[in-house]
């Protein structure tokens, strides 16, 4: 079932490119169950134009 068809907000297709950075690697070595590693591993950056198209506001759930 196309669940998206029931959503009122507009949808966009995104390609997620994953990568690590030095801060995430350091946090993982220090504690892979720590808050710092979790915070650095759970971020998706979006282009400002795409964010505008989604018309989401700060604090809203997007997925």
């Amino acid at each position, binding site marked *: 079932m196309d669940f998206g068809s029931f959503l009122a907000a507009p949808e966009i297709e995104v390609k997620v490119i994953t990568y690590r950075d*030095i801060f995430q690697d350091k946090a993982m*070595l220090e504690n*892979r169950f720590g808050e710092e590693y979790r915070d650095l591993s759970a971020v998706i950056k979006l282009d400002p134009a795409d964010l505008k198209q989604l018309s989401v506001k700060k604090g809203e759930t997007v997925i």
Partner: protein
Amino acid sequence: MCEEPDMEKNYYVCTGCGLLCDDIEVESEKNVVNKVYTACRVGVAHMKETRGEVNFRVDNKPVDEATAIKEAASILKNARNPLIFGLGTSTNETQKIAIELAKKINATLDDPSSFCLGPLAEALIQDKLKTCTLDDVRNKADVIIYWGTDPSDSHPRHLSKHSYFPRGSEKQRGWEEERTAVAIDVRKSHTAKICGNYFFQIPPKGDTEFIDALIAGLSGKLPKTSYNYPPKKILELANILKGAKFGVVFVGRGLIYSLENLEPLFKLMKILNEKANFHLIPMVGNYNTMGFNENLFAETGYVNSVKFENGTVKHGPEYSIVESLKAKTVDAALIIGSDPLLILPRSISKNMLEIPVISVDNCETLTSKHAKVYINTAISGVESGGSAIRMDGVKVNFEPVIETNNPSDEVILKKIMEAL
């Protein structure tokens, strides 16, 4: 009274990544590392990795070492087709014991290179690609390409110690005048930012076409791509590459994951060496993945994904960790210094939860938390010594920085062998 300055300094090797930096100074007291000099952010974290007490568990209950070893041996003995996986952060000596162990118990043996840079390591070991050492790069390289890799983050001292910023014996004017750094990637990484105007951003999976276009540009033809990359920019890149007296291509997973096979890369290296002088070095992540590939190749003729069976060896993708877990062909797993539950997709790694797992690791991981047997070992390169193969194929020996009560993975594997 002033103390005489200590002119004799002890330099240690950092085993935090495939660079194996050998100029690290450490201050330690009572077998705790207090200060680390010269290393990068990741290296410092690696050498100061927080340690718990010596820790052996069976079914999540603390046990002594002998009980853990006995249980591990019993799991391996009773398995029809056990998997041995990991070893990228183990010494050559440990890897050779693991190969012997795999032979003894007719195991499937694999390491992370089967889903990382394995094909490239195999081609280099078989002399199918021209390579050089990082010392050659520092002393001679004038054109450096970072393709699908971001060493500023993954191998933080790569640019400063070896590839771009240093003044080498034949490159005294350094990066300002004598070196050109090029980045080809799907995103503007920190390394790409350093490369400035020589950053070529391509779409995901666009590498093969970019290679074809670059080969066309190098051959004096008009470079074309379906994603309309400006031909002028590709021709500009081709001209830089043609002028290289000592060029190096550093290849990362970004490029390898994008290619169906290595043929486009072979073609590119061939034409680059017809027009100029180019070498290739893989951007190996773990400190001794190259060692595993070399050691297994010396023993079997393959770099990963093997299955031992009564003195014979089989090889193929079906013996990789990904395919053997997918097909559920392995019925026990000995994981050494790796965390498949973290690094593999859940749809594949979840099958590991259905079989008994022995985790041999220096720290608690998702895999160790779900293992039937957990054996906490010394940190290889910090608390135990040995030798390893650097990402460019150079052998590096290292001594432990501090002493520990934790056994090394080498000792643990020997004891498991004896218990069998």
